[in-house]
């Protein structure tokens, strides 16, 4: 290799240029001279303490570093104090019981943790190593001792210990918090279970579990709840009046939540009781109106409902059934004919039930022939928001068209189709919705009720 092109390495001590100006000394000596004035200087000011004692412990020689740590003068120590005089009481004890015997036995000992007692009363944790120097005949002459400042190390260890204690405390706290959270969760679950049980019982007072068998008629119902507690604000029922006639109703209480559910319950039982007394639809709604008005509006907490109430009067001669109904502020019922047509059964002008002390209700009558179905619904269905931006209402006309497509089908098929329609509204359906279909079976169709 041609070395003429090589650049001199400034860090290479062998580089000849570094030797210039060293005054002709050998290179190693020149370095040593730069770094240490003398071995004595190294001894005195080394970063550790040095100490030589006689075999009885009397200090014979001690370096400046260690004197500095102790805060003592050389005169006070050399020849006057023993090594153990430099230690704390605990250090003295440990020295007598462990350090000195081990040293005598093995001739050397290293890394023993002791504490120096400073002249000002302070303590310095140190690590001490000692070795016995023997004479030419093997007799012990003196003890050489190095003392390392362990304050940083002790601080580090204490820091570790503190950290460990803190971690332990945090772990215990976390554990306690976890146990608390677990207990709270179990309590909440128990509360929730109890509440759900209560709600389920109350719910049964709002809606019938099953619809009764109505001779010569098929019935089907569906309820969609938008309320997370399943307390319903819409309601319906079908029940026998006497040996031949049945009554039915469906409605919607204004408002939401437990207060609305309380009105629902009152409404349902008022209508059932009123109908047994006088099954005329206007009479039943008038009784309900008086009860709600007296109970709520007169008491300063007005609550209302919209209701369709009706009776079914089967005609064994035709197999059909006559419907008399009255509406208080409720959307018109739909009639689906066996021939595939559908129309509303208008009841305009019927007033919301419970608003005024005396209210007018509008009646309507129709006859269901075999294959015809009467559909009652609450406005959750017609007020459902449709369209990509949920700004359009489903509306009466769309419902009428939908009903016409299912006219002639039995009630449970119609309700099934409507259930699918409701599901398709997704989040556009934000209100409770009740559906009740009453139909006279087409010839050869079995009587059947579903919910």
């Amino acid at each position, binding site marked *: 290799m041609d070395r003429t092109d090589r650049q001199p390495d400034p860090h290479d001590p062998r580089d000849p240029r570094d030797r210039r100006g060293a005054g002709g000394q050998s290179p190693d000596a020149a370095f040593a001279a730069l770094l240490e004035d003398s071995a004595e200087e190294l001894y005195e000011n080394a970063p550790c303490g040095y100490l030589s004692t006689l075999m009885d412990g009397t200090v014979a020689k001690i370096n400046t570093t260690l004197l500095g740590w102790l805060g003592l003068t050389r005169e006070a120590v050399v020849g006057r104090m023993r090594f153990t005089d430099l230690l704390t009481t605990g250090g003295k004890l440990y020295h007598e019981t462990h350090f000195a015997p081990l040293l005598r036995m093995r001739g050397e000992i290293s890394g023993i943790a002791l504490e120096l007692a400073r002249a000002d009363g302070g303590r310095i944790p140190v690590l001490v190593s000692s070795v016995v120097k023997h004479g030419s005949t093997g007799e012990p002459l003196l003890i050489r001792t190095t003392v390392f400042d362990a304050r940083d190390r002790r601080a580090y260890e204490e820091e570790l210990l503190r950290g460990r204690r803190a971690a332990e405390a945090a772990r215990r706290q976390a554990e306690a918090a976890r146990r608390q959270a677990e207990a709270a969760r179990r309590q909440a679950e128990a509360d929730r279970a109890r509440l759900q049980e209560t709600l389920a019982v109350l719910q049964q007072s709002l809606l019938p579990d099953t619809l009764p068998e109505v001779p010569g008629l098929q019935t089907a119902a569906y309820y969609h709840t938008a309320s997370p507690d399943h307390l319903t604000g819409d309601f319906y029922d079908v029940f026998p009046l006497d040996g031949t006639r049945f009554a039915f109703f469906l409605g*919607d209480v*204004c*408002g*939401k939540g437990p207060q609305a559910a309380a009105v629902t319950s009152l409404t349902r039982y008022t209508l059932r009781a009123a109908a047994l007394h006088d099954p005329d639809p206007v009479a039943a709604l008038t009784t309900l109106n008086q009860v709600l008005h007296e109970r709520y*509006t007169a008491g300063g907490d*007005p*609550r*209302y409902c*919209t209701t369709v109430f009706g009776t079914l009067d089967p005609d064994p001669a035709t197999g059909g059934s006559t419907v008399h109904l009255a509406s*208080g*502020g*409720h*959307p018109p019922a739909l009639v689906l004919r066996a021939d595939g047509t559908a129309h509303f059964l208008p009841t*305009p*002008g*019927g*007033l*919301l039930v419970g*608003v*005024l002390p005396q*209210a*007018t209700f509008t009646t309507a009558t129709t006859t269901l022939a075999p294959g015809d179905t009467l559909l009652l619904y609450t*406005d959750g269905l017609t*007020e459902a928001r449709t369209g990509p931006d949920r700004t359009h*209402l489903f509306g009466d006309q769309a419902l009428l068209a939908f009903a016409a497509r299912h006219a002639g089908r039995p009630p449970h098929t119609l309700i099934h189709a409507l259930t699918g329609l409701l599901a398709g509204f997704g989040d556009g359906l934000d*209100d409770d919705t009740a559906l009740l279909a009453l139909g006279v079976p087409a010839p050869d169709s079995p009587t059947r009720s579903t919910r």
Partner: protein
Amino acid sequence: MNPLKITTRDAATGPVLEITGALDHHTAPHLRAHVTATALDAGRRLVLDLKGVTFCDSSGISALIAARHHAHTAHADIALAAVPANMLRILRIVGLDQIFPLHPDTATATRPGPASP
């Protein structure tokens, strides 16, 4: 969320409340409270201008009935003005078009005379 805005002014016939926004479960109590706080002398007329109402559910209907109750308790009248088509449809279904005097606008609603048009 469409907040409800209500501004009150005085007409020759009495207070006029201009209501803007959606009248629903959340906002209807606000209208109720506002109406209840509106002073109304006997023989005066409370006019609710509903031109700006974008939505009204059963809670909104209840608030209207509460307003009617408030007016009648004070021996005053109540009238609805500029009812939007969709809200009018609902008022007709629940029969309230028969118990509330309805006016096409505030100008006719505040014309002195009986509340009914």
